[in-house]
């Protein structure tokens, strides 16, 4: 038999290597060599149509990604950049099919070498369906995810290394790659440096203080309501959850009006009784104080509800054991309740911090990040995300907005890191 002769030879003429090589030369050739005519035909058609359909697009895209265009007014740098990124994604997709084709040809050739009988067509199709099934399931979502979430983030990532701003914008001008210039400006150039430092520190303070306050209040209330002596638990819970149930944008705008110095009820009806007028919207310190109070109001019900649910799952015998040992109430809280609550809810609590870090709505709806502050191009209450919004949509400093976005992304990755470590989902990874 031919097969036996070939089998004894080593090197390039071994079927597995030959099939691999043929598939490297062109998808489908290796399959043809393996006598899998239908499969070979399929790979062949897919490869040809992929090349015909995408060659030009990828060619221009990659060229555009490197040069960002060469003729002003004719080449639109931003569109070229976007096309370049899409071309990269398409290319990755194509290369994965190509690699799959090579691996498939090699595997098939190896089973032929070992004398495994050829699969029937029906069986081949079934096994293809079986192994391909999870990929079919995630494909629609994956495509959406790539184009709606990943691609825009990649685009922002690249913008940070260009000189795209109001004065240098396509189609009138071409953009250039400028390396880390934008980041250097953020750290060194006067107004940018000031603004960045102020916004950055306030973002950190805001995230930590507002989130910790809302968690503490939620925890405190959950423990109080859980007390055996308290009656009407259900009614109390429902009322305490109310701020979560009302759409946040409605409550923030209501608060914005409440704190308004001219007609808001806080100054007009409450503080006027003791003859105090506080400039809630025009003084940065008071605006920040108001924001933290409002966020506590908005955020504690979620934590409260969460803790209430978990509190009921703390085993009662642990408290009984503590009673026997004569543990005080504080000790019971410190050593039983608190660790239990924290362990069960850590991922969601980390997400609360991340949520406030990105809490554009409250900052923008309350006061649009104002009051304005001398010597910086962000408002006094702007956090990083609302500053990015202003840089993008109000002053069109796209490159700086992108640079700030990248810094935000790095910080978010810190949250994500803790999240990964705390998420139980990964501890049980081996289950399936």
């Amino acid at each position, binding site marked *: 038999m031919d097969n036996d002769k070939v089998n004894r030879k080593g090197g390039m003429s071994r079927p597995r290597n030959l099939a691999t090589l043929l598939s490297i030369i062109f998808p489908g050739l290796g399959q043809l060599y393996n006598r899998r005519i239908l499969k070979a035909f399929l790979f062949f058609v897919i490869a040809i149509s992929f090349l015909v359909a995408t060659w030009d697009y990828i060619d221009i895209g990659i060229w555009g990604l490197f040069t960002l265009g060469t003729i002003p007014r004719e080449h639109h740098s931003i*569109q070229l950049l*976007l096309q370049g990124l899409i071309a990269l994604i398409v290319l990755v997709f194509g290369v994965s099919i190509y690699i799959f084709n090579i691996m498939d040809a090699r595997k098939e050739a190896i089973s032929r070498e070992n004398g495994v009988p050829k699969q029937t067509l029906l069986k081949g199709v079934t096994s293809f369906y079986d192994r391909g099934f999870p990929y079919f399931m995630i494909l629609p979502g994956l495509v959406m995810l790539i184009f709606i*979430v990943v691609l*825009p983030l990649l*685009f922002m990532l690249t913008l940070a290394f260009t000189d795209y701003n109001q004065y240098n914008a396509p189609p009138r001008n071409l953009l250039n790659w400028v390396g880390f210039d934008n980041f250097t400006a953020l750290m060194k150039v006067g107004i940018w440096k000031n603004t960045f430092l102020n916004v950055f520190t306030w973002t950190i303070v805001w995230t930590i203080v507002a989130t910790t306050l809302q968690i503490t209040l939620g925890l405190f209330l959950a423990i109080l309501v859980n007390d055996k002596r308290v009656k009407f638990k259900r009614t109390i819970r429902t009322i305490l959850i109310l701020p979560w149930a009302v759409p946040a*944008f409605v409550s923030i705008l209501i608060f914005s009006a409440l704190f308004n110095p001219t007609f808001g*009820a806080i100054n007009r009806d409450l503080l006027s009784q003791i003859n105090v007028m506080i400039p809630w919207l025009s003084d940065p310190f008071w605006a920040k104080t108001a924001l933290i109070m409002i966020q506590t109001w908005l955020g504690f019900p979620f934590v409260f509800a969460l803790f209430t649910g978990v509190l009921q799952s703390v085993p009662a015998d642990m408290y009984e054991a503590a009673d026997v040992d004569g543990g005080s109430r504080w000790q019971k809280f410190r050593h039983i309740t608190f660790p239990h609550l924290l362990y069960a809810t850590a991922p969601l609590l980390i997400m609360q911090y991340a949520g406030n870090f990105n809490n554009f709505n409250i900052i923008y709806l309350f006061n649009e990040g104002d009051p304005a502050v001398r010597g910086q191009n962000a408002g006094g209450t702007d956090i990083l995300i609302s500053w990015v919004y202003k840089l993008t949509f109000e002053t069109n400093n796209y490159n700086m907005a992108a640079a700030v976005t990248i810094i935000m992304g790095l910080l978010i990755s810190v949250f994500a890191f803790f999240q990964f470590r705390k998420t*139980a989902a990964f501890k049980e990874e081996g*289950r*399936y």
Partner: protein
Amino acid sequence: MAMNRKTKSKIEVTFIYLFFIVMFIIIGYPLFWAIMMSLNPGTNMLVTDLFPENPTLEHYKWLFTNPRSDYLIWYKNSLFVAVLNAFGSVVITSLIAYAFSRYKFIGRKYGLYMFLLLQMFPALMGMVALYILLNTIGLTDSLWGLLIIYLGGQIPFNAWLVKGYFDTIPKELDEAAKIDGAGHLRIFWTIMLPLAKPILAVVALFNFMAPFMDFLLPRIVLTSPENFTLALGLFNFINDQFSTNFTRFAAGAILIAVPIALVFLLLQRYLISGLTSGATKG
């Protein structure tokens, strides 16, 4: 001594109730104030009263009957996006979650990490690119464009949540069905989906409510008033002339807040159990 402890306990309980009362006032006051404002006649905030002498429903009437009011159109738009968003997100995320919970495939583990990471990045970060992309396919100022962004953006968080819930469904169930000859889709349809109803309800509810509450994305995507969603339309009410339109805004806002709050309070138990089991038991 025993008497002493009893009085101490009584004082404590009194303080607990007092604290609740203070909290109720803090929670209730802003909401009550907004309701009273919406009943004040006229649109001038400077002459409003917490207890108006002659309360009126004129602002509610204006929203529904005045030819200059687009309120009903906004309600319709929001409902359109909300229904499709709830339905679409359940379909997409349950498919992904099923694959991630029950199958081994290349990129599975990194896919999970990617979901966890991506859910923390707000859509605003990629807004410039999204706008240009929508522009290229001609979907700016369109509710469909808005819907597509919602559908894509919800994937990381919800897929992760639903996957966590699917993991709690015993694998023996689908193995038994497999032995009986059930195919992949059949197992998904007859075993996974019915058992995962609570978490799917949570996903549907979240995504139904999102278009009613979000104002940022619509603000960037939608430009003409007849395409506005409720949140955006109401925001524009007060954006220009805050002090002169607040009473009207309050009326419009209450009409959104009441149904949403009711649904929310009715379903809160499922919400919380879904969230905790999806995120912690995973």
